[in-house]
């Protein structure tokens, strides 16, 4: 055992007391700053929106710090009851929810507006991890089917709202969880085949506006003022950025309102217009670094629950990034997926903060495990 310098000791002590992983935390902080700056630009230099975003990030920071301090066993214990409660809320949305833009997503409880599907993004991985952690390896049919049922219940309810984008975002991590938990390759193959076979069925049950979005993706110029407008304008924004962009606050597409949803779902287009190809590559690299760091934490986690939870949450973040960037650059249909920590909006930041808090907690409490 070598002696560490006193400085290093003190710094490690600082991070340990906060239960934080310094690299991941630093990357998240950097991303948040970039996000605030871009929101400021996307809202036409409106300080109010940037300040609101900052406040949400600070709130998220508090949530992250709180969650990070909690020992993983607490989450392990709360996972299934929380999942059950959230499932009830989703059922409640179906009967008592408020309708916004033709779909019921919100539930008003005691004056607080709640989007249960957002909660489910955290609770489903937790519940799955809790269920799959004790399963014998390699995972066989029974736990797999149990996991699929846990996934299918909330996803089905969300599809009914209808909110296909969120359903996808809830379902995808579930699938990854099964994969990472060690489900036999044979079973994975069968599930994938079944999923592919059910695609035509999905198409037939889709709503018209959802189909239109998919079709618009194939030919956005067919209706440049209507359904194709979003994609066309965001492609113009990205493309006009060129190599190095027009510069911060200089993007005309967002500033002059040509780009819809500029500060929320389409904030990547604003960033791309202002910082160009170099900027978007750096941003993508930042996200990859965050995910990779998460996967490294997962690899060194001390128990199976922690490994599964952290790895799944990391992949989930990347799924967000991929779907959002794919949508904005016109290779995926328009679905309401925010860009993590960049898009303006409270619930997304909060759930991400909790997710990263969970990862921090797993990391910080790894020494306590029996393996160490």
């Amino acid at each position, binding site marked *: 055992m070598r002696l560490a310098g006193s400085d290093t000791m003190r710094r490690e002590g600082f991070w340990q007391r906060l239960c934080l992983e310094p690299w991941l935390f630093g990357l998240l902080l950097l991303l948040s700053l970039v996000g605030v700056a871009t929101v400021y630009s996307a809202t036409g230099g409106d300080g109010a929106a940037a300040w609101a975003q900052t406040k949400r990030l600070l709130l998220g920071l508090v949530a992250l710090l709180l969650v990070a301090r909690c020992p993983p066993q607490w989450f392990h214990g709360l996972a299934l009851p929380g999942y059950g409660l959230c499932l009830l809320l989703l059922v409640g949305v179906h009967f008592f929810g408020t309708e916004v833009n033709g779909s019921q997503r919100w539930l008003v409880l005691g004056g607080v507006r709640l989007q249960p599907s957002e909660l489910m993004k955290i609770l489903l991985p937790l519940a799955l991890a809790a269920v799959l952690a004790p399963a014998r*390896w*390699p995972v066989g049919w029974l736990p797999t089917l149990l996991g699929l049922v846990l996934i299918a219940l909330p996803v089905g309810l969300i599809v009914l709202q209808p909110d296909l984008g969120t359903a996808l975002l809830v379902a995808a991590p579930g699938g*990854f969880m099964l*994969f*990472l938990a*060690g489900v036999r390759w044979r079973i994975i193959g069968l599930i994938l085949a079944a999923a592919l076979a059910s695609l035509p069925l999905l198409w037939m049950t889709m709503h018209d506006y959802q189909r239109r979005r998919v079709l618009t993706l194939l030919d956005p110029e067919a209706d440049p003022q209507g359904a194709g407008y979003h994609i066309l*304008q965001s*492609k*113009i*924004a*990205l*493309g*006009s*950025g*060129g*190599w190095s962009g027009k510069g911060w606050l200089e993007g*005309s*597409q967002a500033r*002059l*309102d*040509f780009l819809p949803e500029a500060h929320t779902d389409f904030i990547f287009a604003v960033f*791309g*217009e202002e910082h*160009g*190809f170099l900027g*978007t*590559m750096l941003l*993508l690299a930042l996200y*990859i670094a965050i*995910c*990779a760091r998460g*996967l490294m934490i*997962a*690899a060194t986690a001390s128990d*199976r629950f922690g*490994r599964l939870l952290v*790895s799944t949450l990391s*992949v989930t973040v*990347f799924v967000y990034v*991929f779907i959002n*960037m*794919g949508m904005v*650059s*016109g*290779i995926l249909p328009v679905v309401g997926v925010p860009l993590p920590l960049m898009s303006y909006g409270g619930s997304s930041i909060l759930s991400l903060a909790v997710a990263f808090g969970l990862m921090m907690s797993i990391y910080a409490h790894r020494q306590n495990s029996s393996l160490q």
Partner: protein
Amino acid sequence: MQLSEGREQLGDFRLRLGLTLAGILLLSALISGRLWLLQTRDHSQLARRADSNRTTDLPVQGVRGLIYDRKGTVLADNVPSWQLEVVPERVEDMQATLDELAEFVNLAPHELQRFHDRRQGAREFQPVPLKLNLSPEELARLEVNRERWPGVRVQATLTRRYPRDSATAHLVGYVGGITARDLAADEAGVYRGASHIGKTGVERAYEEALRPIPGTRRLESDAQGRRLRELDYQAPIPGWDLRLTLDSDLQRATEGELEGRRAAAIALDLRNGDVLALVSMPSFDPHLFVNGISHADYQRLLDDPGNPLFNRALQGRYPPGSTIKPVFALAGLEYGLRHPRDHTYCQGWFTLPDKQRRYRDWKRSGHGRVNLRDSVAQSCDVYYYQLAHEMGIDRLAEFAGRFGIGSATGIPLPAEDVGILPSRDWKMGALGESWYPGETLNVGIGQGYMLMTPMQMALMTVRIATRGEGFEPRVVQTRSRRALVREEPVVPLPRLELRDRRHWEEIHDSMVAVVHGWGGTARAVGEGLPFRVAGKTGTAQVAGLSQEDDEAPQLDDVPYKLRDHSLFIAFAPAEAPEIAVSVIVEHSGGGSAVAAPVAKVMLENYLMRCDGVVWRPWCLEADI
């Protein structure tokens, strides 16, 4: 928990983690590739689209070129005026606003129609003119109530003015509202934002020179079309100013002589083809058309029996009558059918061999023995009946055609008529009948089917005066823009070659004899002039009254519509010609009585001016 199973499980987990990371990198590469295409390969195209998103180009109207006469008198200019405009996006209830406005300004149906038409193609934030050229009273009333209608505004513009009013309406023409068809045909975008376009006369013929090239104001605007700031400004280029060949003094004097008549008169400078005067009476006020003529006004002009919109000088078709005789006299010499001293006996009528019908001379008693000069000076018809009979219609037509009958003079003004050069082919094509010998006799004295415009008669006179030279009539002398001045080309006509050039002198002498000779038909023209005039009278019959009646009818007994046209052509000074004129006065009797005095006034007005002129002998005498 067994350690070996745990280790194997951890190994499998890490393998799957690695696969996941590989998947992440693969998808990242997909995104990167997509961004590479968008942001580098498609960059220039998408950047252009971003620019066209944010920029709006507004046309900036330039100033239409001015029109002057040859001495610099303004014939067409632009004066400030006020027009009522509406910005549709700022008006809540368009119909209610229009109804309210109608109480303050007079909104005619054609103005409302034009407003709705122009609104179709305009964007919501672009102002659309509702009423042009507001009167001071309307302006005052609107100004008082300005706050009542947001989106309604009074805008200062320029409107076309013709200071000489009706005097130059047929030559200068007028501008009018630009039509949707004009705009559709405008591929180069020269009429972006334009409200007017040349409709007739010089305004139309020289539209390309007169019209300004609009500038551009490039504005940045947001997705709602609101203008935020000016990015670029390109100044408009004004149209060319035109200096016409027209001589306003001569034009005015000619008009004064023809006041109240239905008439046309033309004066050409035969040294270069300049149109010095072009009069068609009655005329009209060109301002009526500039800002949209009302239905009532237009109907009034159409119903006027004098047909004021009809440009008689270029479109009126008249039988040349005896004014064609010098040309046919020349034909007789050229074809060797006549010698100047050959005599024909005129007994007052002519009959074709083996035919009964008598073709009468205008002088019942006949002219007696006439040679070539007498035939022109006294305008003996029988001489030309005989000559035409000998020559035949083919040679007559061929020779007349060389003097421009039946073809355009080339004057650069719209809608010139070419008249009719009758021939066997023409008659077969137009009427489907073969030619009769008697018709040749009628053509021989400029009657029958032969029709000419006053402009053709003037050019024919030039051809005679210049001994076969002459130029295409020129209307514009120079065009200028800022410091740049460009001379319009003088286009010589192909020279008319004669077998014997001395024949020209015979014709000149005989035309001088018309004015100055003993027994000449226009002796009054030459009286009191210091220079000699060569001319020819003509009387164009409207109806064949005199052929059948033994008694020549008195002018006053004949209904106006059936009275003869009076014609006169002349050039002067006879020895060194400068100017050629043609005058026709409808339904006014013989050429010597009405048309010739008008021509005299024209020649006098032009040739008696001595300011700076040294080559006219009478000017030198006047100085002493």
